């Protein structure tokens, strides 16, 4: 196995009840890079993303065969600690979903759940996370206000800060900018560029330009299958598969 890979996915098949959503997926997610998952709606991008931090566990009838290895360990093994996994692999959702509590409490939520109580330590974590999420300057005077009082773009950066506060290794993002305007989207894209120094990022996006701009690797999915996975420049300049070319040139999807 490639030592630069954080995740290694081997022959992953996933069913929702009777319906198969992923077919024989095998791929490696490289460390400290941005990996984009693209493909038409319903092709299984979110499903694959959720199987990396086992959020699919919450879905009734979801069944998984094959392996997802995180840092060499099979996360679907019986003895694997899913809580531990989720502290290392953070997630940012499509719709900004801050908790109905203050900005500070939102960011401090994860660390508090890990048992950190010391006020000074928490304040430090919150400040750093907000700084890293490029939100601190905008909210530093109103940390006590509700997270829901922020704009959509700020809320999404708050959610990124909330994930960063756990000091994870990987951040999974499912269409993090699809609910945002172009300016807020640009801010988040800049942020992702900054974050990749310290984190491995896997991002689902419908926006081809976005994938081309921010990612190092791109995986193209079609109807639950991984069609092509390569360096982003290669995918966008000289795709090997005709279907990939059709999709990125906008001929379908």
């Amino acid at each position: 196995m490639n030592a630069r890979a954080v995740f290694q996915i081997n022959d992953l098949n996933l069913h929702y009840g009777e319906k198969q959503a992923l077919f024989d997926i095998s791929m490696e997610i490289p460390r400290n890079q941005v990996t984009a998952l693209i493909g038409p709606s319903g092709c299984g991008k979110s499903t694959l993303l959720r199987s990396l931090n086992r959020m699919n566990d919450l879905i009734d009838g979801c069944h998984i065969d094959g392996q997802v290895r995180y840092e060499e360990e099979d996360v679907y093994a019986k003895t694997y600690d899913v809580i531990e996994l989720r502290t290392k692999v953070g997630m940012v959702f499509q719709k900004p979903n801050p908790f109905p509590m203050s900005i500070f409490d939102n960011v401090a939520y994860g660390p508090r759940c890990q048992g950190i109580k010391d006020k000074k330590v928490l304040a430090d974590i919150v400040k750093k996370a907000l700084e890293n999420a490029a939100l601190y300057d905008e909210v530093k005077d109103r940390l006590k206000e509700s997270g829901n009082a922020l704009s959509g773009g700020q809320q999404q950066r708050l959610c990124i800060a909330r994930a960063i506060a756990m000091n994870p290794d990987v951040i999974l993002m499912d269409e993090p900018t699809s609910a945002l305007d172009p300016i807020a989207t640009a801010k988040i894209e800049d942020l992702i560029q900054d974050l990749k120094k310290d984190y491995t990022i896997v991002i689902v996006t419908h926006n081809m330009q976005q994938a081309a701009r921010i990612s190092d690797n791109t995986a193209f999915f079609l109807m639950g299958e991984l069609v092509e996975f390569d360096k982003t420049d290669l995918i966008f300049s000289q795709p090997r598969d005709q279907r990939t070319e059709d999709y990125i040139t906008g001929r379908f999807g």
Partner: protein
Amino acid sequence: MNHAKRHRKDFMIRIGIGIVSSIGLFVLIAIFAFVFQKGSSLLSWQLLTGDYYSTTYDSYYDGTLPSAGFERPSSLDDSVYYSSVWGIGLQDDLDAEGKPYILIVYVDPNSPLTSLPDKNTEGETVQIASGQTLGKVIFSNRTIVLTSNGAQSAIQLFDGADGILDLLTTTRGKGIRGSIITTLYLIGLTLVIALPIGVFSAVYLHEYAPKNSKLAEALRRLVEMLTGVPSIIFGLLGAAVFIPFTSTITAADGGNLFSGALTLAVIVLPVIISSTEESLKVIPDEYRQASLALGATKTQTTFRVVLKAAIPGILSAVLLSVGRIIGESAALIYAVGTAIKDHIILTERSTSLAVHIWSIMAGETPNFELASAISIIILIVVFVLNLIVKLVARRLSRA
């Protein structure tokens, strides 16, 4: 032609509906108006804080009186007759049955009347105070005060006397402090029992129970069923189960506040479970997912995010329950009893406000005015509670 007929029919039906609904409205308004008209004159601070039972004190005075007398305070109303010799102010008044009596409205703080020897108990003293009723008085010069002669004549006799052989005074009574305290105890005890059970049941049903769980389904059915049971049946349950139960584990012997609270807990549990579950339902799943994705456990997610967000819903469940507890009467007749008390002991019988009404109306001489006054108090409290519930609900739907 046909057209006109249809119009006429429509018109008749509208008139009919109008008449029927205004009859309903009229009856409702009439009831409220009746209750307010009957009871509002009794509403007073004394009603809320006073004893229900009046006590008669028997005392005398054989000491000396200060020659300077006691100055009439300027705050006293013109209708008050005042004796500067004794420092007492009296007023004519009518009781609930319309009979005249003499009310003590002022006693000078330095007057000897503030501490008289008690004839009935050696060594005890009696304090004559405003709010008491003046009964028969025999002065040392053999003059006698008769209540029927009124306050003015009484004051003349007071002014002409320098000693009292026999003084009867009566505390007012007909206050409902005891029943208010019982009601407050019942609210507190019931919520202490029912709130944790109700909230945890709802959390189990909505957050933990697997889909299609038989147990959860059975619990929901039970809750639904309990909502429709008439409360007298819960009263029987209280009598048959909770009174013996509380009698064995406490000093109680018969109806008491614990068995009352247990009975009420059974009654309000369905309310708490179902409205808590409703409030859990409207909490977006995104919160739960966000929490779990941050490495929080299920329990942490439930308590730190879900329940916290459900607090307004739980609060309105509490308010609804309080309304139900205040309004409940049938279920408490056995479990707590019908004996009106002034000094409330948890392990003894007493009455809640609603049962207090029942008790005074069931007696030989029903006291309609007092019953109406208590009704007004209950109506106001329930109205305010409902208003708060509405406000909370509106706040909820806006958030």
